[in-house]
């Protein structure tokens, strides 16, 4: 048995060693993630442009200005619609699709083929997906319009990305096209971890597939459902690339989201302080979602 001072020394040495091993990772996070996020909050209290030497301290005026900016409400609403549709498709629909593929309704070979086909869009760069769908959605010459013409639905034809009523929905649709299959594959992994005999027992009792889904699959993958829901909501909050590529927030700011609004303010309109204010709002919404997740996981 080592005596007390030896023990303390050993603990101290391990502590020091522990810190050394995590230091590089911590350094990266502090310098490139947390530090800038805090600096950003400070920036939001000033009014300045990229080149200006004078920073006007404006306190919370940027926030007041944001609150009164009609574009802010549009953006916030669009993020919310984005989240609602994404959760429905990527959690609801994806889970049902995964349950069907895992229930051996199809022969193995076809089930694998379906999984690969539905997974495929998720490996493509968002930019390429956005540009390809832009071409597909082009009025008259695009594939979607041609399908509508050929099937006698010509009256539905429109400039999906060019009209304020449809632009954001077209973008959201493309995002569902890209990610539903990926989340489905995640759920398939989770469903495979649910004990088989639960299904067998219910089947002996004569339960239908739908009953098995509600009573075994859903409770069995509850943890995954929670995490995927949070990730999807966070993803809808920070969405930027697909919107920027497909509509850049237009036409007439109708498809603006917080990310595009922030980016435009900083790098197009040169209002750095105002842009930081938008980023700070994104920060606090993300923080709230994160805290809710921690709370929900603890309550379980």
């Amino acid at each position: 048995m080592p005596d007390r001072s030896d023990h303390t020394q050993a603990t101290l040495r391990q502590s020091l060693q522990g810190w050394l091993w995590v230091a590089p990772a911590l350094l990266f996070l502090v310098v490139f993630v947390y530090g800038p996020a805090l600096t950003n909050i400070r920036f939001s209290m000033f009014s300045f442009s990229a080149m200006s030497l004078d920073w006007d301290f404006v306190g919370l005026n940027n926030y007041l200005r944001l609150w009164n900016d009609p574009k802010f409400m549009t953006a916030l609403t669009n993020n919310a619609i984005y989240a609602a549709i994404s959760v429905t498709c990527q959690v609801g629909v994806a889970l049902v699709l995964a349950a069907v593929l895992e229930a051996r309704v199809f022969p193995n070979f076809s089930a694998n083929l379906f999984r690969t086909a539905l997974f495929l869009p998720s490996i493509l760069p968002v930019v390429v997906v956005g540009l390809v769908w832009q071409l597909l959605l082009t009025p008259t010459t695009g594939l979607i319009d041609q399908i509508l013409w050929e099937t006698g639905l010509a009256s539905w034809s429109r400039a999906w990305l060019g009209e304020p009523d449809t632009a954001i929905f077209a973008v959201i649709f493309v995002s569902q096209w890209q990610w539903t299959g990926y989340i489905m594959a995640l759920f398939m992994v989770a469903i495979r971890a649910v004990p088989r005999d639960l299904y067998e027992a219910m089947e002996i009792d004569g339960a239908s597939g739908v009953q098995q889904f509600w009573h075994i699959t859903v409770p069995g993958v509850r943890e995954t459902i929670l995490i995927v829901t949070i990730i999807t909501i966070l993803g809808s909050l920070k969405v930027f690339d697909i919107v920027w590529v497909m509509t850049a927030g237009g036409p007439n700011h109708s498809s603006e989201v917080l990310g595009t609004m922030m980016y435009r303010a900083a790098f197009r309109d040169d209002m750095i302080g105002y842009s930081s204010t938008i980023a700070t709002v994104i920060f606090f919404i993300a923080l709230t979602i994160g805290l809710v997740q921690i709370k929900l996981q603890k309550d379980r």
Partner: protein
Amino acid sequence: MAAARSFPALALLNRILLWAVFLTLAVICVYPMIWLFLNAFKTTNDMFAATWGLPKVWHWENFSTAWNYGISRYLLNSLVVTSATVVIELSLATMAAYALVVLNFRAKAAIYTLILGGAILPPEVSLIPLFRVMAETGLYNTYFALILPNVAFGLPFTTFLIRAYMTGIPGELREAALMDGAGEARIFREVYLPLCRPILASAGLISAMRVWNEFIFALTFVESESVKTVTIGVMSFAVALRADWGVLMAGLALSILPILATFLVMQRQFVGGLTSGAVK
């Protein structure tokens, strides 16, 4: 076994309906890519005349035109940024995970929370201050301007994955090695790293896909053709070629060909790797 896993009450009609649904979804997911590759061989006029059909004449020169427009350089830049990011990220995450699993030290739980917490913050939140740092330090418009933030924003999830895997490695292995007089660095290198190979492959794949497709840093922190990655490259490409759809589509097709080919050859490993972490 297989019978027990199927829905017993499923009528033939239901089965047909499910087939129809999945076939439709599969076509919707795959056809846009087929459409892209077929139309990449057409002239703009052919495309307007018949966007459905096979090309009447296969215009292979669309691809060489696109290649010479700079796609090759963008692909190279993406390769450099992606491989550097993955190597640095995996090294740092594996080290941190090792300490978090096997060593006992003060504030360990707090440090883990701090690392994981980074996953919540969207890149937008750090973008403007980072941009200023890049400009002031001269990192702006270099590979490092993309590599460093990409590493930082990837670390939380990568550390999470590797740590979860390491907790499954029996502690007795380390204790036995300690008895034999091995230090932590040696145990890390000779015991833990070899055992972690499967999760390192998965985490590396996830990280590589994320960096290869990364957009907002690439849009903000670089501007020269010589450092632009393929995601931003195709954007400028698309602006320059608005009128020449055939060449534009050939360029888009070329830009995704490396990923697509790898995916089709190794789809099982791909799906398996990209979905690891789905269950704890």
